[in-house]
Every structure is written in structure tokens, then in C-alpha cells.
């Protein structure tokens, strides 16, 4: 049994809101989860779900109202828990009077590296995130996406074993996104543990070994992609051309729903587990052409929407407490 890298136990965070009579507002409600070494773990959820709050709690930037969190067996309140952790904040801001290279050298030193070693790692990392040419440029002159790339680089400065990224794809162009995806996979191949938050479900679907879906401060679903997403075929979709009234009537009798795209061209949705072959034969017999036939499977997006839609935060401060 290997020790989990992250252990979160009933972690709860209330923010006081209101100036005159601050009332607690529950941003995160009794979250429990574990992340094992080598996992790529995705933290998903709509805006305001509590993803950033969770990650900030793990880095000790925010103190929990109740509950505990440990990283590598150390409580997150201790400085030592951050020794082997790299963090990319959401919409990061860095010291804009420094150059990219100086920033990485400084952050490397904060992680206990000697200046020369930190500088060497910094240069290599800037190359790795595609900022090699801009390393002597003041961060003030960086574009948004360049700052984001720099943020990814600084998260890796001491070669950490756990990398926590808050919306790593935000602000990046398609090439940047592809680069970050490749980087996450290469970190995984190096045996590192990655925890990231995202709204982009397709990224989570291709990258993550497990995901947690948060909404309204609560954990709604947790598990591997195969646990959460039913990969079996749920329906078939056909696209037919040259459909006449008789064929249409016959198709409808099977329980299929139809959308007429243009005269004679029909999209057929055949629900359930019925095989599509008979329909193909009828279409053939009626002289209609089959333009497309494809299975409909559940995606992470369906799972996500199922868990997230209609989830509202309870009246502030009254949740969970009683």
C-alpha cells in the first residue's frame, strides 16, 4: 500500500461576507478525498463551485474553518508540507519588475535551491514552456498567455513531486493548451502526481485518471472515468437522405425520434439498446441513402451536467452546521 499524496478530510471553509454583520458563507462543505501517487486528478465544477478554495486550502493560503488536509503526510498548515509541491494560482500575478529568469531564480531560492542551481533550472523550464526567447524580458511586458506559461514553469521550479494547477489552460491559445496537456502527461510519465482544476471537460476526460465534480461547495461525484461515465451505447443516430413518407412512418413506429433537416433529409435518433440494422435495411429498401450512423455514448459532459444542474448552495452559513 502506498501512502496517498493528498488526504483531505471533511474540509470546510466559510468566508465571512458583509461588512457590518459578517455572516459565514460556505465556499466548501465537508470535502473528503484522497489522491494517490502518480495520479492525474481533475477537480471539476462550474464557476463558484469551490475548486480554487480547495486548492488554496491545500497550499495553506487559506485556513480551513474545520476539517483537515495533509500533503505527503504533513498537515497543510506546516511550511514543510509545501516542500515538494508546485502551485500555479488561478490567473497568476508575478513580480512584474523581474524578468522571467529572475523570477524563477528567486522562486527556486525560496524552495531552498542555491542561486546558480535555481538559475539553471529556471532556464531549462523557460525553454520547456516555450519562453526561452523571452527569459530576459521584464514580466511587465509579457502577454497573458506568456504569464500563464511562466506560471506553469514556476510551479515546477524545485522539481516537485506534486504539482497543483488551478485552471492551467486559462488564457492559453490552442497551441498553449496542447503544450500544457503534453506537459501534464509528461509529468505523469515522470511519476509525479498532478492535481488540476478545470472547466474544460474534454481535457479532464483525456488527461485524468480520476476526477472529482464539485458544485455549490459540495462533492457531487468522485471516481475514475470508467466509474463515472457509462461507456455503453445509449442510442444510435442516423442521418438519412431521400426519406419518403412511408419510410418515415415506419421509422417512427420503432420509437425513433426524427428531425427533418431539409426535404428528404432526416436525422433519426434511435433510443435505448435497439440494434440499428433493421432500420438500415428499411432505408435501403425504400431507396434512401445512409449518410451517417453513429453510436451515442455518455460523455463526461453528460455526467457533469447531471451532477451540477440544479445544485444550489443552501442558505449561507446554515449548511452542514446543524
Amino acid at each position: 500500500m502506498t501512502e496517498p499524496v493528498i488526504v483531505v478530510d471533511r474540509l470546510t471553509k466559510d468566508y465571512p461576507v458583509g461588512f457590518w454583520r459578517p455572516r459565514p458563507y460556505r465556499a466548501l462543505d465537508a470535502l473528503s478525498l484522497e489522491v494517490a501517487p502518480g495520479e492525474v486528478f481533475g477537480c471539476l465544477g462550474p464557476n463558484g463551485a469551490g475548486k480554487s478554495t480547495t486548492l488554496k486550502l491545500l497550499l495553506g493560503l487559506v485556513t480551513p474553518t474545520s476539517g483537515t488536509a495533509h500533503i505527503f503526510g504533513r498537515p497543510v498548515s506546516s511550511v514543510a508540507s509545501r516542500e515538494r509541491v508546485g502551485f500555479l494560482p488561478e490567473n497568476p500575478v508575478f513580480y512584474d519588475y523581474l524578468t522571467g529568469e529572475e523570477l524563477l531564480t528567486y522562486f527556486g531560492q525560496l524552495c531552498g535551491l542555491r542561486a546558480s542551481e535555481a538559475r539553471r533550472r529556471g532556464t531549462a523550464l523557460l525553454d520547456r514552456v516555450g519562453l526561452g526567447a523571452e527569459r530576459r524580458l521584464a514580466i511587465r511586458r509579457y502577454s497573458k498567455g506568456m504569464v500563464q506559461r511562466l506560471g506553469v514553469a514556476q510551479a515546477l521550479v524545485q522539481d516537485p513531486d506534486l504539482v497543483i494547477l488551478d485552471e492551467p489552460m486559462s488564457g492559453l491559445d490552442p497551441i498553449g493548451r496542447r503544450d500544457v496537456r503534453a506537459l501534464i502527461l509528461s509529468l505523469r510519465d515522470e511519476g509525479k502526481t498532478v492535481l488540476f482544476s478545470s472547466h474544460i471537460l474534454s481535457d479532464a476526460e483525456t488527461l485524468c485518471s480520476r476526477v472529482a465534480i464539485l458544485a455549490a461547495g459540495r462533492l457531487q461525484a468522485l471516481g475514475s472515468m470508467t466509474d463515472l461515465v457509462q461507456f455503453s451505447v445509449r442510442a444510435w443516430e442516423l442521418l438519412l437522405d431521400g426519406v419518403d413518407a412511408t419510410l418515415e412512418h415506419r421509422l417512427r413506429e420503432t420509437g425513433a425520434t426524427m428531425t427533418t433537416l431539409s426535404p428528404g433529409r432526416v436525422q433519426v435518433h434511435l433510443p435505448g439498446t435497439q440494434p440499428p440494422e433493421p432500420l438500415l435495411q428499411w432505408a435501403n429498401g425504400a431507396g434512401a441513402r445512409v449518410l451517417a450512423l453513429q453510436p451515442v455514448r455518455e460523455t463526461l459532459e453528460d455526467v457533469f451536467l447531471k451532477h451540477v444542474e440544479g445544485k444550489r448552495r443552501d442558505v449561507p452559513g446554515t449548511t452542514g452546521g446543524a
Partner: protein
Amino acid sequence: MGLLRAVALNTFREAVRDRVFYNLLLFAVLLVGTSLIIGQLAAGQDVKIIKDLGLAASLLFGVGIAVFLGIQLVAREVERRSVHATLAKPVSRPVFLLGKYVGLLLTLGVNITVMAVALFAVLAVYQSVTPAGVQATWTAPALDPRLLIALGLIYVELAVVTGVALLFSTYSSALLSATFTTAIWVAGHFVGDLRTVEQIGASGTTVWVARLVSWVLPNLALFDVKAEVVHGLPVPAGQVVAAVGYGAAYGAAMWLIAVAIFQRRDFK
């Protein structure tokens, strides 16, 4: 120790890359230079005017820089959220604050050194253009090394003011911090008067409140030996040592309170 040095040097670097710092410094040096002209205008007068003006300018602009940079030390990082990435590194908040404090003290050290060089340069010029006969009437030589004591104590005063700015900066916005720090700096020069209110016939509660306030506020009059130095009066070593010790203790206390506040802060 390495961490402290890294934070301090980065803070220093931030200050020296800030254009405002140079503007203030340039302005201060210009003012010291102007005192030469004023000294000339008040012909036949003593070299005291130049010394007075030079020391006053060093203090005033030093306080300006201490307040201006001090209030931003932490407040700006928190407001701009650059503190997130930094404090996510294995560096504790007390070390972070101390590093910022030390970094600003370094900056102020550079500032006061430049001011001292400017003052001595002006005095040297003044001395060279003044006839020996006039010089003989001066109560203290133009290039009096005891000016360094006055400048040193000004530096300690700046360190105390920076400590106050650091403290406010950990939980308040830059503008409020600037106002509070300046107010405390001004009030700090009247602490001695507060301690003697009963002599002017104040009543029980007033005396009590005045005493309390006088203990909380920094007693900045302790750092003021300008008059003695300018007039060539003796400055006892014991007084200087006591003032430095008091300044160090006050600065440390500010840091400790700042740590207590900062430890509890959530970074949004």
C-alpha cells in the same frame, strides 16, 4: 537564513527598480544642495543652517520613502495577489515578513548613505569658500564626524517608522496605511509631552490615557540629536546606545504583531 536573504534582496531590488524611489532621492539631494545657496544668502551666518537643513531633509525624505515603500511592502502584494505564488513556496509567513522588512531597511540604508554623502559634499564646498577667520567662530567644524551619529539615529527612526508601516500594511490598504503611519510618525515626536501631562494639571483619566498612548506610540524624540550635533554640544554614548536599543526593540515588536496578524490572513 538563505530564504530571508532571498526575500530581502528581492524587496531591495523591487525598490531600486521603482522610479519613484529615484525621484524622491534626487529631490532630497537637491534640497541638501539648495541649503548651500541658502547658507550663502545668510552670509556671515554659521554653517549650522546647512547642517540643520541637511539633517531635516534626510529625515523628511527618509520618512517619505519609508512610508511610501513600507505601506506597499505587503499590502500591494496582497492586493495584486502576487503573494499567492510566493507563499505557496516553502517559506513561512514570519520569514517572508522579516525578509520584506530587512529588504526595506537595506533600501533605506542606501538612501541615508546617499544623503550623508550629499550633505558632506555640500559642507566641504561651504568650508572651502569660507575664510579661515569666519571658520574660527564656528562652534563645530563643518565636516563634523558627529553628524554621522545624527544620521545614524535618523536611520533608526526610519527603521521604526518602517516597522509601523509594515504592521499597517499587513491588514490595511495602502492609502489607510500611509495615513496612519504618517500620523503615528508625527505623534511619535510628542510622546515626551504626553508623559508629563500631569505636570500641567490634567485629571486622572486623562493622565491614564495619555500614559497608555505614550507607551504604545514610538518615542521618536529619543532619536533626535540634531540640535546637539549642530551646536556642537556633547551627545552621551549611553543615550545613543539606549536609543538604538529602543529602536531595535520597537521594530521587533512591530514585526511580531505584524506576524500575528499576517498568520491569520486568508489570501483571496
